[in-house]
């Protein structure tokens, strides 16, 4: 397949697999992404328990309950124009509403009564998603929405204990919704937490190895590895871990190519990762490499406390979520770690929260002499606009 023939996001996956034809592991990773939603839906039809979920900190809990988390964001990512049109024309979502939410809503609409019925929502998501869940209730979906509290900077002691107690209670509510009982199989949960920690450790090692092999695992598969792979395991934990092990082995055995290191332009990607896979391709082709990502796993789950508390602590202790000031620290660490020459700030059109964050980061890093580019893109299918590609290429030319 030639890049000129790429039309849909699925085409991009095929193209990516072809570009990485030298790596069996990357090919398998792309296949896991390709088949994730369809295989999960098929498994559900065959009687496997599965729910639509965001899939982040809660993944160990869901697997411990025997439930496969199916990322609704990923369903939207591999969406098409019709899904977007359903949201805008059938549900009358304003055009300026986040395209990610619209894609997901369109896909849920198509699946009414024929696929996975349960949706786990959380108040930590943006308002349009909360609206989407309300709409889906009316479409026959069984939606369970939990309150995810926010730990403000400096929150410690008694206040933190209160937050922990509150959130534990919310988790027991999720378990009851999933299994009919508030009992949690702590041994199983502990096993899942250990799996997660193992994978976090391995993926971090892969990211470290990318610093020596910046063009081996290019931008798109890196994002697939982190965003969906590490969060949900593509619904196939054992298979995903095999792929991670294989990729690690490939990278460990590969000799370092000094020429690659001389020509690479290390970049950090901060913000959402939309559907515009063409942007990643443009970065790769221009000699850039997304070596730092805001979504890197920062901390493992604690294993010195009860597994339920470990889940809660993960949310409150992990600065990956929450305020822009937390995220900024992560980005700053990544910039230093990869010796980044530039920062790509990306958000979806219509996402007002992210646009404020990006502006804050831009100013902060600008003052520190780190150039950045602020991109707004769509979650919908199709190639990025010419102007967006011009910005990306000009930015990398500027850093060359």
């Amino acid at each position, binding site marked *: 397949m030639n890049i000129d023939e790429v039309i849909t996001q699925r085409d991009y996956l095929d193209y990516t697999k072809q570009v990485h034809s030298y790596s069996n592991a990357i090919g398998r990773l792309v296949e896991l992404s390709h088949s994730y939603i369809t295989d999960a839906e098929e498994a559900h039809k065959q009687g496997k328990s599965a729910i639509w979920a965001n899939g982040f900190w809660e993944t160990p809990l869901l697997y411990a309950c025997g439930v496969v988390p199916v990322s609704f964001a990923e369903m939207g990512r591999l969406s098409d124009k019709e899904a977007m049109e359903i949201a805008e024309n059938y549900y009358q979502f304003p055009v300026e509403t986040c395209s990610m939410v619209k894609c997901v809503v369109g896909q849920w609409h198509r699946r009414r009564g024929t696929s996975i019925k349960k949706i786990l929502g959380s108040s930590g998501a943006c308002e349009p998603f909360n609206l989407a869940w309300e709409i889906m209730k009316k479409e026959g979906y069984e939606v369970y929405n939990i309150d995810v509290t926010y730990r403000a900077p400096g929150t410690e002691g008694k206040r933190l204990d209160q937050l922990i107690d509150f959130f534990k209670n919310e988790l027991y509510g999720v378990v009851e919704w999933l299994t009919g009982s508030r009992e949690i199989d702590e041994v199983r949960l502990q096993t899942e937490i250990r799996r997660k920690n193992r994978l976090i450790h391995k993926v971090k090692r892969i990211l470290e190895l990318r610093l020596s092999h910046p063009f081996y695992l290019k931008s798109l598969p890196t994002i697939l590895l982190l965003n969906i792979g590490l969060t949900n395991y593509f619904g196939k934990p054992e298979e995903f871990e095999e792929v991670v092990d294989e990729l690690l082995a490939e990278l460990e055995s590969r000799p370092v190519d000094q020429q690659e290191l001389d020509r690479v332009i290390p970049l950090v990607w901060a913000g959402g990762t939309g559907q515009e896979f063409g942007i990643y391709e443009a970065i790769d*082709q221009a*000699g850039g490499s997304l070596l730092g990502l805001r979504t890197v796993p920062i901390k493992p789950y604690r294993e010195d406390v009860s597994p339920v508390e470990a889940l809660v602590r993960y949310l409150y202790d992990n600065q990956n979520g929450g305020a822009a000031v937390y995220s900024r620290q992560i980005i700053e660490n990544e910039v230093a770690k990869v010796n980044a020459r530039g920062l790509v700030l990306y958000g979806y059109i219509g996402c007002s929260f992210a646009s404020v964050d990006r502006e804050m980061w831009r100013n902060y890093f600008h003052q520190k002499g780190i150039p950045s580019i602020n991109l707004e893109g769509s979650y919908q299918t199709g190639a990025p*606009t010419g102007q967006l590609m*011009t910005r990306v290429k*000009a930015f990398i030319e*500027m850093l060359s």
Partner: protein
Amino acid sequence: MSHEHAFHQVIDPTVVSELRNDKTLGFDLGSRTSKAVLLADGKLHTAIIPTGIYMQQTADKLFARILKQSGYARDQVRYIVGTGYGRIALSFDEIPSKVVTEISCHAMGAHFLNAKVKSIVDIGGQDSKAIKVDTRNGKVVEFIMNDKCAAGTGRFLEKAANLLGLTVEELGQAALQADKPSDISSQCVVFAESELISLNARGERRENIAAGIHLATARRVKNLVNRLGLEPDLVFSGGVSNNIGMWKALEDLLGHSISKVKLDTVYAGALGASILAQKTLAGEEVAEKLRPGKTSNLAASASAN
């Protein structure tokens, strides 16, 4: 206007020695017009034509035009750099080529026209850009691009001129005759159109409306410029740069003059492309970045292992 200039007539004397004898061509395929600059034997040749639907046809036509004007043969051109929004589609079988964004090309072109230039305002047919330039080498230091709305672009000026029954050139001239520029408040080209119709219907002088249109456009550009904190020497490039009304509106709003150079700055992008072609031949630039459809060296080497 002449299509042929000796280097020393138009290029900044402090950098003219950096140009070589290599015959190189720069194409800047914009959304409205396409420009070419050929550097050859100490001379700079220019050509401009309207952009057609098919970019390769436009490039071929432009190529033929500039060869005819300059008297050179196609096979004498050693390297081509394409830029502008139509750059992706370019292909020249027998001549090595690469594509570079118009942002890098405008910066390089402006640098060779005035080596002191620190800032560029580039207003084209479909977007506007503010660019900061490194005075040491013409490379981009920072840039910002407005492509969210047609207001602040050449397309808006064209639309407004049509509504007033003027050409874009006449619109610029009319703006200079204004005694009280109309207040065009809308930030959206669609609503601005309604305002123009209302102003026309109320009998407002066309000159005042024309000045109001330029000021409204310049205000959007000014906000873009302010974000980067542009400073003199400032060059105005792009298709709108020879609109005298826009020139005045920008100077009024920015509060300082725009530097004049000795070549029409609609050619700044093509000139920069041609210079980058020379630098590529000299090994100062990467000869060819990975182009769509080509397999990476890594893929080739890794699969061979």
